[in-house]
């Protein structure tokens, strides 16, 4: 058995193809880009060597830190929201809706297939004041809170929270289905014996279901946090990073720096910082979860 599993040719056969394309299309470009962090300039005007200047610039760049702060706040809130809402939904599917859940699952899932521009436009329309009062403001006026009518996306915190709501709404159905797949896998006899011990409802969920769901929950969290740390499309479609720079995440700041401002070297440095930050966050979750699973 052991010998069989140490067969070199088999190992090469199984890991070889994936590792090859991965190296060529992912690792090589990363190292290549990492090289650009020591240069200034762009592909048109040419690059010039600056050593570690880009990195020291990073530390004194307020815009970078502001973006980093926004990125982390967004990633934390949206990850909790997405996975949390997904978990609640999946529990509801399996314990309450059961057979009838198929249609609801599909409905809740559908925003995922909607193009970002369409979703963003809907949220813009919902919260706008001009040229038409959106649903939200019209409702406020309707219930006598007319004095609170305002340009919600035009305020830094308004824009941030609308972005958060939009992204949670879009993807909670997706996480619900992921977690639902995990729930379906939990053997009934475990639940049954727990019930015989007197556990039920929330206790059952907390003591039995959640621990068994941990692996897929951790995967979901890692998945979500890496997606949200790299948020790009939805910001661009909803707020374009505004008002001012209030909702500009690192990816957008990097993209603007590299392409619009023509400083590809510094842009790569921002990207590198983002990569390292994501790596750190993931490793922390990874470590924590491994410990948890072993318990």
């Amino acid at each position, binding site marked *: *058995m052991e010998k069989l*599993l140490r*067969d*070199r040719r*088999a190992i090469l056969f*199984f*890991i070889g193809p*994936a*590792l090859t*394309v*991965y190296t060529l*299309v*992912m690792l090589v*470009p*990363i190292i290549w880009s990492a090289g*650009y962090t020591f240069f200034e300039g762009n592909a048109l005007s040419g690059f010039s060597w600056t050593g570690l200047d880009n990195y020291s610039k990073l530390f004194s760049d307020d815009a970078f830190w502001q973006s980093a702060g926004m990125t982390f706040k967004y990633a934390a809130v949206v990850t909790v929201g997405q996975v949390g809402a997904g978990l609640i939904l999946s529990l509801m599917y*399996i314990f*309450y*809706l*059961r*057979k009838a859940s*198929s249609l*609801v699952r599909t409905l*809740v899932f*559908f*925003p995922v*297939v*909607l*193009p*970002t*521009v369409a979703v963003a*436009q*809907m949220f813009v*329309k*919902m919260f706008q004041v001009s040229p*038409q009062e959106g*649903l939200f403001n019209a409702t406020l006026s309707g219930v006598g809170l007319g004095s609170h009518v305002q340009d919600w996306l035009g305020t830094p915190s308004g824009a941030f929270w609308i972005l958060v709501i939009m992204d949670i*709404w879009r993807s909670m159905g997706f996480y619900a289905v*992921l977690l639902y*797949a995990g729930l*379906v*896998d939990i*053997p*009934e006899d475990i639940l049954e014996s727990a019930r015989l011990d007197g556990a*039920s*409802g*929330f206790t059952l969920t907390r003591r039995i279901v959640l621990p068994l769901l941990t692996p897929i929950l951790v995967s979901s969290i*890692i998945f979500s946090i890496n997606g949200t*740390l790299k948020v790009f*499309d939805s910001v661009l479609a909803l707020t374009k990073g505004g008002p001012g720079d209030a909702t500009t995440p690192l*990816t957008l700041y*990097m993209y603007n720096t590299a392409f619009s401002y023509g400083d*590809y070297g510094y842009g790569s440095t921002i*990207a590198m910082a*983002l*990569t390292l930050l*994501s*790596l750190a966050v*993931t490793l922390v979750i*990874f470590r924590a979860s491994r410990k948890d699973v072993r318990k």
Partner: protein
Amino acid sequence: MTATISTVHRKPKSRTRFVRKLGHVPVRLAVALLVIVELAPLVWLGISSLKAEDEFSSRPMWALPRGFHWQNYVDAWTTGNMSVYFRNSILATFPALALIIVLSVMAGFALEVLRWKGREGVLLLFLAGVMVPLQMVLLPLFTIYFQAGLINNLWSLIITYTVFGLPLSVFLMAGYFKAVPREVLEAAAIDGAGLYRTFWSVVLPTVRNAVVTVSLVQFFFIWNDLLLSLTFISDDNLRTVQSGLLNFVGQYGQRQWGPTFASVCMAVFPTLLIYLVLNQKVMKGLTAGSVKG
């Protein structure tokens, strides 16, 4: 024999117990609210796709269209070229999905089941790929593809989607392989089945669920991609659904919303239908797989 929760639904006893605990009314209200929150946008999308251009700023968002402006659909089909974009999206998405599945199942097997030095390191290397922002590698990738003559070629998308899908998929697959009991493998080995046959006939069926999950995760990643298709494709005949929506954007970012929403409807409703059909199959597969496991 282990049953799953889903089989429980047929037992009225446990059913009533659960339902009573959770309470009827609040949950029903919550479900109703949920359905509204999800359905309303669909309706809005449909309504908007039939509005004339000036209605978007002259009338409230919930107003019904003044007339059925079917011209939007005509525009979406002709100017918007939706049929072509839909085909391109499918041509880019499914080969990439297939590649991701094949490569990640094999890699997951090698990383979690097979025994070799450095596999922890390689797993970490793959995991690191999850963190890399796409924007970082655009220039190098563009250069490579350009030199290889792959710009304005769907292969540039397929390759990139595959590679960017690999880290997470390999990671998930490795996790699933951990759950495959050792004894299963040993039994197969004692039977004299070779490694490849064991992989094919014993190991593969046990990770069916994982394959479904990974496909689901990756499908929507790929389907919703805009940045890559914008960067690598500029030929109008090779655009995907997402980048095809740009046909209704003017120089100053003005969008013709009518045809845009008509395009979105034309793209979304078939997708939804496919999902509804697949959904039944997928969930059946999930349940069947878990009963066996």
